[in-house]
């Protein structure tokens, strides 16, 4: 059976320990952390170390900022890379596996006006490869993995599909970068999500789950058995981390996810 995780902000409780108590009762195997900017994640190191001592399982962290390593602005790019390096260091220090980031989020969409980004595709690629190489080298030194997450076309204009992420990762030649897939974005971008998982099996390192409408798994119309079946087929042994909005009673919604995924073939 595939393991499940919930992002920390979804879980009720004031402390990681309290959230973990709830998570375990609901059937989760782990908590996925969220990392704000301004080195906020690093400032939480004592809290995280204590949580680890108390048995909280925290394998992954997902970036929670508004600028990223693919930013148009050079200063924002530099800052995003510094933040991600710090996040990779912290997740390594608490015995985790890696940190997830998209190339960008909310910066530009080719599907919305003005349609043409200020930077060419060639320049995008150069910027992304430079950022990935720097972050990937850092991750390798820390013994963790950088997970590159393709987002749908309305949220990012550079990396939308698994094949694009795979192409960039191969170009860096680094084992310390893997694809962090997300069921919601894949539903929009991949013509056959299950086949895309099979096609890029060797590069998939992490998986986030939410349904077709971004709500918790079970609240939309994704073909979960096919998607989860494909993950089983490639021998995926990471977590399914719930990163979603919630509909209905929020506590019940979070509680419902592990059982739903299990019924759907996880």
């Amino acid at each position, binding site marked *: 059976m595939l393991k499940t995780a919930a992002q920390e902000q979804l879980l009720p409780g004031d402390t990681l320990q309290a959230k973990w108590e709830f998570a375990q009762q609901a059937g989760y195997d782990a908590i996925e952390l969220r990392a704000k900017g301004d080195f906020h994640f690093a400032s939480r190191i004592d809290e995280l170390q204590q949580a680890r001592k108390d048995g909280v399982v925290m394998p992954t962290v997902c970036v929670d900022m508004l600028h990223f390593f693919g930013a148009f602005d050079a200063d924002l790019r530099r800052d995003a890379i510094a933040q991600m390096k710090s996040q990779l260091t912290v997740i390594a220090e608490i015995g985790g596996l890696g940190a997830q980031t998209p190339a960008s989020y909310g910066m530009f969409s080719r599907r919305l006006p003005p349609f043409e980004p200020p930077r060419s595709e060639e320049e995008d690629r150069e910027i992304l490869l430079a950022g990935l190489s720097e972050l990937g080298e850092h991750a390798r030194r820390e013994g963790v993995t950088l997970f590159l997450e393709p987002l749908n076309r309305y949220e990012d204009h550079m990396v939308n599909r698994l094949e694009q992420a795979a192409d960039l990762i191969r170009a860096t030649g680094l084992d310390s970068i893997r694809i962090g897939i997300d069921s919601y974005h894949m539903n929009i971008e991949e013509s056959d999500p299950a*086949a895309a998982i099979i096609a890029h099996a060797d590069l998939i390192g992490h998986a986030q789950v939410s349904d077709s409408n971004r709500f918790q798994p079970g609240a939309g119309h994704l073909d979960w058995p096919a998607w989860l*079946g*494909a993950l089983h*087929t490639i021998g995926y042994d990471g977590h399914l981390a719930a990163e979603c909005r919630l509909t209905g009673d929020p506590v019940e919604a979070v509680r419902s996810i592990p059982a739903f995924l299990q019924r759907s073939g996880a």
Partner: protein
Amino acid sequence: MKSLLDRPAPTAAADLTLRRGAARVLIDNWTGTSTVPSRTLYPHQWSWDSAFIAIGLRHLSVRRAQQELESLLAGQWADGRIPHIVFNPAVPYDAYFPSPDFWQSAHAGRPSGAPSAPQTSGLVQPPVHALAAWLVHAADPGESRRRGFLDRVHPRLAAWHDYLLTRRDLGGAGLAAVVHPWEPGMDNSPCWDRALERVEPAAPEEFHRADLDHGHPADRPTDLDYGRYVRLAADYREAGYDDRATRHRFTVEDPCFNALLAVSELALAAMARELGRTGAAHAERARDLSRRLVDRLWDDTAGIFRARDLATGAMVDERSISGLVPLILPHLPQDIVRRLHATLGSPHFKAPGTRLVPSYDLTGHAFDPQRYWRGPAWFNTAWLIHRGLRTHHLHADAERLREGFLTEAGRSRFAEYVDPVSGTARGARQFSWTAALTLDLLSTQPKEPTP
């Protein structure tokens, strides 16, 4: 003791590897609305393949399994027939013969109600679809009800059976007849040899065989037989695929075909009950079909069902796996079950190289361990026999067959079929129904509701 040691002990890890491999085949061979039997040899949608595929696909994705059957039903003709091939318009004509320009379904099939699109063949294959639809429903009744699956497919499947029991009752005895060796699904079986001899073959220059581009000639039908297949299909086409207007030169009552029709009638009865209607008429039909099968096709001397050649009225003097498949019928008299069980274990069908069941009598005059349906063992027929053994509580033999099936499916990379003497895998690999039925046997619930 030695044989015990020789045999690898089944493990959970081996099952997991097999499950992953089978799921991978089904994901790879999925086209978006249905599954190709094989990426290399069969690039369109085949009728009974899709039914067997749906039976396994339901364990991977109930939604895909429903789509598999519904995309096939989208090719159904107004007279009720489900064509044996629904063509993918994106595939070039020369990828498979006979191609859409041979069948000309939209034009030549118009009198019989062929759809203007998709393009299809005009022949049929064994009616295992209702059984498949019922099993797909049973895999997740909630999802099935939510999507109105049975509401949509039941009337179409009932029309399909009506077609077979009216237009295709060519012997007038209440059994469905096949009009081409491709229809019973066992194309090149020696059972059809005598009936085929009466057919003038089409000239070799009239067609180009695409099956030899990927398949080995030693495995495939001969050119002479292929010419006869083409002639029969062309004659049917010229008569507008109208069963009343066609002077069929090949008409056979096949035991496997009719046994599957009976079992599928039971599935329709179960579906009707699920939909809050009475299933009595379907159940009655199933009993009638079982009775007629015994009356018309059971050979008590040989202990096997035989095909009946309607041109001569005589039973075909060949033993084939088709004659064992009626074991799947729950209404079969117990003495016939015992005889079939004995035949299954006799030198005619107990193969040295496989635990699957050979397609033709190992001691028969026409036995060939490699050529299509003249000896090789197929996985879909093994699945049917397995189901038959379970139906009649012959659990030890069922389990032996299941273990053999799973071992050989994995070892052969989900081959199309197996040489029953040497055990060598033959035909296409990553074959969809082999993978699908592997998933099904890995997931088999002993208490799964039977229709």
